[in-house]
């Protein structure tokens, strides 16, 4: 009971994931295999880092709709550099990350500086970055090939790709940032009540800008994982990813109103989203069925959490 109270929310959502895995295990012969796990681990790194960055943005009380497009733009830049200009990965990868970082910074500066709701700033940025990605690649997919694939290759001795471990590292890092550092506390505080933070004599602006910067950077890093897995750079990459990322974050219990959330739980949210997708594909569900089940599971996953809280008598 004690553990349920302290880590109840984590346990609850983890249970949803395990249930989902078991369910697909029953429905499909081949689901419960090492192979599926490896596939899953290869699929999630990009979404994981992006959802991790998004978690911070939601905690601070903002939203970032541009992550998918920023990933597209970073990919495009990576493709341009590596394919057309023959720049090696070690140089072009940092540049792609910096592109993401810049986009994030612009988001942050506009949101904070002009005090425009981040929803609109990042919606604008969504369009701008996607357009820029088309411009950069002239709407062509760039085939990069083997030179970008090391990131997606297996870590020696394991059956998981390097990118997976890196993305888990990002999750852990951001969680530590959130819980153990001053910056993290300020982020939570700003999301709870920005006005009160200002009254406490703290300028909330640098922290807010930084959070958007981190989220943009995460999108940049995500683009590397994405390109590594596909071996090519696609200006359409990541379209619609913002909703998937936000869904994962919110399934993980982070409040859209800010002030509450955990990157670790976001990671479980990502697992749920990805497992659902993988499982439905393996049983070969029809498109309409996939849609309906996905929708139902999203709602169910959160309901479980609500019921758990009711049961332990928490005031929801």
């Amino acid at each position, binding site marked *: 009971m004690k553990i349920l109270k302290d880590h109840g929310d984590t346990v609850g959502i983890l249970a949803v994931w395990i249930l989902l895995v078991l369910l697909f295990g029953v429905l499909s012969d081949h689901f419960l295999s090492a192979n599926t796990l490896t596939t899953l681990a290869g699929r999630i790194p990009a979404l994981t880092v992006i959802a991790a960055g998004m978690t911070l943005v939601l905690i601070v009380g903002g939203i970032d709709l541009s992550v998918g497009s920023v990933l597209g733009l970073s990919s495009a830049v990576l493709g341009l550099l590596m394919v057309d200009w023959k720049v090696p990965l070690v140089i072009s990868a940092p540049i792609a990350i910096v592109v993401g970082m810049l986009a994030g910074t612009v988001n942050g500066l506009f949101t904070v500086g002009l005090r425009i709701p981040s929803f609109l700033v990042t919606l604008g940025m969504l369009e701008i970055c996607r357009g820029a990605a088309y411009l950069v690649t002239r709407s062509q997919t760039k085939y990069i090939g083997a030179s970008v694939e090391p990131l997606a290759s297996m870590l020696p001795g394991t059956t998981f790709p390097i990118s997976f471990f890196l993305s888990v590292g990002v999750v852990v890092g951001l969680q530590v940032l959130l819980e153990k550092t001053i910056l993290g506390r300020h982020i939570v505080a700003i999301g709870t009540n920005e006005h009160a933070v200002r009254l406490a004599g703290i300028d909330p602006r640098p922290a807010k800008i930084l959070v958007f910067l981190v989220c943009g950077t995460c999108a940049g890093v995500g683009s590397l994982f994405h390109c590594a897995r*596909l071996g*090519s750079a*696609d200006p359409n*990459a990541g379209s619609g*990813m913002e909703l998937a990322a936000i869904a994962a974050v919110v399934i993980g219990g982070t409040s859209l109103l800010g002030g509450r959330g955990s990157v670790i739980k976001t990671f479980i949210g990502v697992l749920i989203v990805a497992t659902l997708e*993988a499982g439905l*594909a393996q049983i070969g569900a*029809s498109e309409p069925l996939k849609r309906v089940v996905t929708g139902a599971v999203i709602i169910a996953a959160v309901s479980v959490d609500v019921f758990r809280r009711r049961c332990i008598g928490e005031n929801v």
Partner: protein
Amino acid sequence: APKEVDHNAPVTGKTPCIALIMKSLANEFFSTMAEGARKHHNDNKKTYDLVVNGMKNETDFSEQVTLIEQMVARSVQSIVIAPADSKAIIPALKRARDAGVLVINIDNRLDPNVLIEVGLTIPFVGPDNWEGAKKAGEAVARMLTKGDSVAIVEGIPTAMNSQERCRGLRDAMNDAGMNIVSSQSGQWEMEKANSIAAAMLSEYPSLKAILCANDSMALGVVAAVAASGRSADVKVTGFDNTSAVGEMIVNGRIVATVDQHGDQLAVHGIEIALSVLAGNSTPKDTTTAVDLVMRKDAR
């Protein structure tokens, strides 16, 4: 180095399992394709198992890569795929081949250069989008006079088949000496195409034809043309011969569309896969028929 896969090895125990991976099943063309495959499977239940999958978002082909990986994880014997992107999924297909899965390419041809680069040969069965579009374009050109203004509504700009179709349309128009005044993307969507066409119609009062990269967009364009009251002057063409345009072909609101026989496309792919799995040699690429559909051929 990739292991040479012994396709001649008898499939032990179970019937072989074939995975059909397509683009968005929300698109009628692919749902027709899927239905054709399911029907074929129903008639041959004993011979093989079938898993049908499509993507949710037409532009996010990483989803298709995931599907390929999932199917490998599910240990299917063969993947029949209509690629969403002709380059980007080749690495994933190579991994599938390395894992011993037979791959057949349908609908949209994989990029030959990249295939050579990674050292793969994958048999292709599918239509020639360029040729189909060119046929439709030529049919319209015959109804116009040289120098008339025409416009093109493209699909998603990154999509290979959109690029091919637009190239075909453009070639036909240029050959016939037409004047292409505008070419914009309708993102494959009816609604988007409708607003673009409306704008084109008011910007170019002398417009004589709007050529669309698929039927869905053609429907939207027809509505825009009707709203502007110029149905008699402006010809519209589509591509795919979906069920909804049937009536429009009959009443002439769409003058031409192209039938790629989607329902047979997947079946061809599956049959080739079965034949190879049964030990026959891998066939050459086959181009399937594309037929122009006009008033006289309408269903």
